[in-house]
């Protein structure tokens, strides 16, 4: 049994707003083992990105804290690489140079120039970007940019890889392709991964555990689902797998029954109509 690697203890955060402090997260507890793949899923605006940013060190928790390998996390660092939701590549650098920026930072003094070069090329190869290595982001498609963002994070050999909806903005085909690549890479390198997603299939396919978050404000961990599907996983074979579909429906049930967020439009309309009628009546009475 591998030991706890990353631990969030009673993490809470309040954002100062003009209308007073807004409590986005409360009592988030999470223990993650080395090499584990964890997905965060929850409705939009519940606080998934906030959790990730706290682990990354970009936000400071107001209460509680994050411990990585026995040391408290207080600031960002390259051992917790982030794949940003909108890729965040530097537009003035080529794919190669974008990856190089991180590699130089992490491996200065440890790798020779030639080794660094090889390492950068190797990482771009992992995400199948060899053909466009010297192109700048504005010459790349959305999926390609996202892949470079992943390569940049991987190339830093992070202990924890933090991914904020890495495939959110991509078409289904590209997404499937990148998911497969990610599974392969993670299988090979054994990074600990925390990935935010909106996509139930993606969560079940990739994760060892799925952390389902309750709706905000003061969001917290609602349920945690262990996914014990055999690896390597194949999306086609899993489509008819009973266990897979069981996990899938568990997540769906959590999202759409227990944490039901969006009322149906009809219901809303009916409610409004009722309000109007009531108002009309009140007027006629007056």
């Amino acid at each position, binding site marked *: 049994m591998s030991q706890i690697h990353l631990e969030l203890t009673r993490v809470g955060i309040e954002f100062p707003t003009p209308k007073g402090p807004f409590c986005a997260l409360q009592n988030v507890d999470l223990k993650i083992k080395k090499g584990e793949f964890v997905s965060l899923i929850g409705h939009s605006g519940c606080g998934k990105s906030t959790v990730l940013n706290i682990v*990354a060190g970009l936000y400071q928790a107001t209460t509680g804290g994050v411990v990585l390998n026995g040391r408290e996390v207080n600031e960002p*660092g390259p051992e917790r690489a982030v794949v940003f939701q909108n890729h*965040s590549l*530097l*537009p*003035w650098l080529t794919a190669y140079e974008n990856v190089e*920026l991180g590699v130089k*930072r992490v491996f200065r003094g440890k790798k020779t120039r030639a080794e660094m070069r090889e390492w950068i090329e190797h990482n771009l190869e992992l995400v199948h970007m060899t053909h466009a290595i010297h192109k700048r982001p504005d010459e790349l498609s959305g999926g390609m940019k996202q892949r470079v963002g992943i390569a940049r994070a991987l190339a830093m050999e992070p202990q924890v890889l933090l991914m904020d909806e890495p495939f959110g903005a991509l078409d289904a085909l590209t997404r499937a392709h990148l998911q497969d690549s990610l599974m392969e890479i993670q299988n090979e390198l054994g990074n600990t991964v925390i990935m935010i997603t909106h996509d139930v299939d993606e969560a079940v396919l990739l994760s060892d555990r799925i952390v389902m978050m309750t709706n905000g404000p003061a969001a917290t961990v609602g349920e945690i689902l262990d996914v014990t599907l055999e690896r390597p996983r194949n999306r086609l074979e899993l489509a008819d797998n009973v266990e897979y579909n069981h996990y899938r429906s568990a997540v769906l049930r959590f999202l759409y029954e227990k944490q039901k967020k969006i009322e149906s439009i009809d219901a809303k309309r009916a409610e409004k109509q009722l309000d109007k009628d009531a108002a009309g009546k009140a007027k006629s009475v007056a």
Partner: protein
Amino acid sequence: MSNKLATLKFEQIKAVKWRDVLIGILMPMVGILFFILLWHTAAPNINTSLGDFPQPKQVFEQWGNLVDEYNTEQEREAVFYDRQEKRNAELLAQDPAAKIDAREFNGRPTFFDKIKTSLVTVLSGFFVASVIAIPLGIVIGLSQPLYSAFNPLIQLFKPVSPLAWLPLVTIVVSAVYVSDSPMFSKSYIISLLTVSLCSLWPTMINTAVGVAGVSKDLINVSRVLRLGWFTHVMKIVLPSAIPMMFTGLRISLGIAWMVLIAAEMLSQNPGLGKFVWDEFQNGSSDSLSRICLAILVIGLIGFLLDRIILLLQTYVNWDKSAVVR
């Protein structure tokens, strides 16, 4: 059928080309011609103490005169050196140990020498301003407290006219810049400093705004990579601030050129400003035409300087597809 389609297309292309030619070349020419015509007809109706206001023709004649003056000066210079050399050769022939003179030709600065002086002065003033404004702009753009500290000063000094700075600069330079064999003339230093003082601000403000406006996402990237201060500035801050910086530089150079002419008039730096001033004092029948000519040249040089900054921007900017105008 397809043939007809082809001709149709061809005609469309021709029509588009026509439009481009019309907008790009013909219309500017029409504008210029219209202006010259207006000037030509209006000028004789303006009677000044120096005679009628010059027409375009007379102004362009002055160009010829100025070129002639330049050529005469060149000849005089050649003759001067020729004579000096001959005399030295004779002296040496009589007595190999004789002391020979090597005096420099001390001719009158022609119109073209004055253009050169003006260009050198404005560029050095602009250079000094940029060397101060860009680093300072970066520093105050990166730090909100420093920005708050500098902002009132910037706002206070930005609107000050060069004519207000000049007396102050003149007196201070006269007091501080004392040397027996000055490398630069006082008037040059005074004009340069006045230009710098006035053209500093747009570059500083725009650089600061550009630096402060770096996208939050990119700053997060830099924080995650834990880039050092220098790398952060070089790799993240500067590239994203470049467009704003150049906007500032362009405004600054424009101001520098305007200020220079005024500064030269008062400080007597032998440039275009002094040329205009001298002609004004001179009051000969040619003076008005020469002043008009100087105005046209000043405008043209200002335009060219702006184009040069634009070229520099397209060269430096990472975004080659950015439209600069």
